[in-house]
């Protein structure tokens, strides 16, 4: 039996459901295309309570996380949300996550749903004799994402927050964390409400329905995992388990800015070596029209297999097939046009920077809405 999030009763009758990493989640409500465009042009609301939430407490919390994570957690001040990687000794990515710094002695980590158990045991095996407690708070809290250019009209009270900052607030006496973060490329917020359990989800359901009302009033939509995946791919944000994994380092993933080799952490030596040069890299590809790359399709250059598609979709904004692919550096040095093998046929695909969309028109850096 798949698990459900605490918010499942709020939308189950309206959603086309799908199983994802052990959870029964909305794939879409009205349609992937429509919901993707609603988020790009207005606002969308997502239940992302399937994501793991881990609380780290204790005197040595900063020291502990600084050893486990690629980013320098001690440098960030309270109220910061920091994106980074947890890596193994070989530099491979165990998970990518956001660390919310409540204080030097207290953090919340939001990790990938599929990796929650693995992350927990990795953390516990690295506790040593440090004064740190790790609590899984996934089942006693909910996580909502409100994303899109109009999200700021819905969470007006938090419009002062800069990107990757958060505030601690209250929702009817329960702790509410509001962060200016997301996984869509758009401006937006993620809200974590404490105290909403499967037995007592009422406040979570109430918060969801109040926000949904405001989303609808702003021309937005409820959105499912289908739109979430399309949005993150258009924005060039990798998905762990597909584009990044324990077999790839952050440098190969083109995300070296989220590692800090000036401090000690697990995986640092491997990363130092990779900073001198890697043999393959994660890149973006835009396919010629009428070709939609999908995961595991081969990437070819002059009939040689030089890479593999890790994620692919039809982009509602570009109206083209787009993909992330891992391609050999030698091939990337020779060409920016490749072929993708699609069911025995080949189609052309060109290297494209992330994000895939025009950053002046879409995404959080866009110029004001016209």
């Amino acid at each position, binding site marked *: 039996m798949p698990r459900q999030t605490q918010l499942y009763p709020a939308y*189950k*009758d309206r959603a086309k459901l799908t199983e994802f990493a052990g959870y029964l989640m909305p794939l879409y409500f009205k349609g992937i295309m429509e919901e993707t465009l609603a988020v790009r042009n207005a606002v969308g609301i997502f239940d992302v309570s399937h994501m793991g939430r881990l609380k780290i407490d204790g005197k040595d919390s900063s020291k502990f996380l600084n050893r486990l994570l690629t980013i320098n957690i001690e440098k960030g001040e309270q109220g910061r949300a920091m994106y980074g990687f947890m890596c193994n000794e070989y530099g491979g990515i165990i998970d990518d996550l956001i660390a919310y710094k409540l204080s030097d002695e207290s953090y919340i980590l939001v990790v990938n749903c599929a990796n929650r158990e693995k992350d927990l045991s990795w953390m516990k095996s690295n506790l040593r004799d440090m004064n740190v407690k790790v609590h899984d708070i996934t089942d006693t809290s909910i996580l909502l994402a409100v994303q899109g250019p109009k999200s700021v009209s819905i969470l007006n009270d938090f419009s002062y927050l800069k990107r990757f900052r958060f505030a601690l607030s209250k929702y009817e006496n329960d702790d509410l964390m509001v962060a200016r973060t997301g996984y869509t490329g758009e401006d937006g917020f993620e809200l974590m409400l404490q105290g909403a359990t499967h037995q007592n989800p009422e406040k979570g359901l109430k918060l969801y329905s109040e926000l949904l009302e405001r989303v609808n009033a702003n021309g937005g939509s409820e959105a499912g995992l289908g739109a979430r995946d399309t949005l993150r791919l258009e924005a060039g944000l990798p998905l762990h388990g597909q584009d990044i994994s324990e077999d790839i380092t952050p440098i190969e993933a083109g995300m070296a800015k989220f590692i800090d080799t000036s401090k000690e952490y697990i995986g640092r030596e491997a990363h130092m070596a990779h900073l001198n040069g890697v043999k393959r890299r994660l890149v973006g590809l835009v396919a010629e029209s009428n070709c*939609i790359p999908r995961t595991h399709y081969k990437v070819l250059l002059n009939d040689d297999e030089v890479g593999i598609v890790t994620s692919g979709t039809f982009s509602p904004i570009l109206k083209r097939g787009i993909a992330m692919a891992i391609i050999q550096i030698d091939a990337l040095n020779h060409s920016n046009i490749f072929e993708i093998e699609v069911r025995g046929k080949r189609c052309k695909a060109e290297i494209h920077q992330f994000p895939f969309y025009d950053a002046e028109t879409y995404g959080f850096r866009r110029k004001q809405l016209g």
Partner: protein
Amino acid sequence: MDSGESSLANYDVPDDLLYTKEHEWAKIISEREVRIGITSYAAKQLHDVVFVELPQLGLEVSQGKSACIVESVKSTSDVMSPFSGKITKVNDELSLHPELVNKDPYERGWFFVLEPANLEKEKGNLMNASEYKKYLKSLTDA
């Protein structure tokens, strides 16, 4: 029943067509002409069809085997031919307007026409409208 969408009333099943278990329909226009498409159930399951890779004219296809491909935002699916035969027409309108598969699956959203090789014999392997309705009910009640 877990959502309004699974209600059988939402799926149109015209009486004059034959159906496959993979949710293709076939309309026998004459002994030499059978028009083929996917059902409203299939179109709803796929949702947001964004590209149809039509078969080449003259291609010989077999009953129950893939004849062409339909792509939605997140998935790629084969369209199985309800009959064996040779492709004689394809619906070029779908190249510009793949959304017709969702909007009008039985009329403007047709995929191809074939000249059947074994019409009478292969008819027996397909469902009529009332059998297909029962089949859909068994799927949506599950």
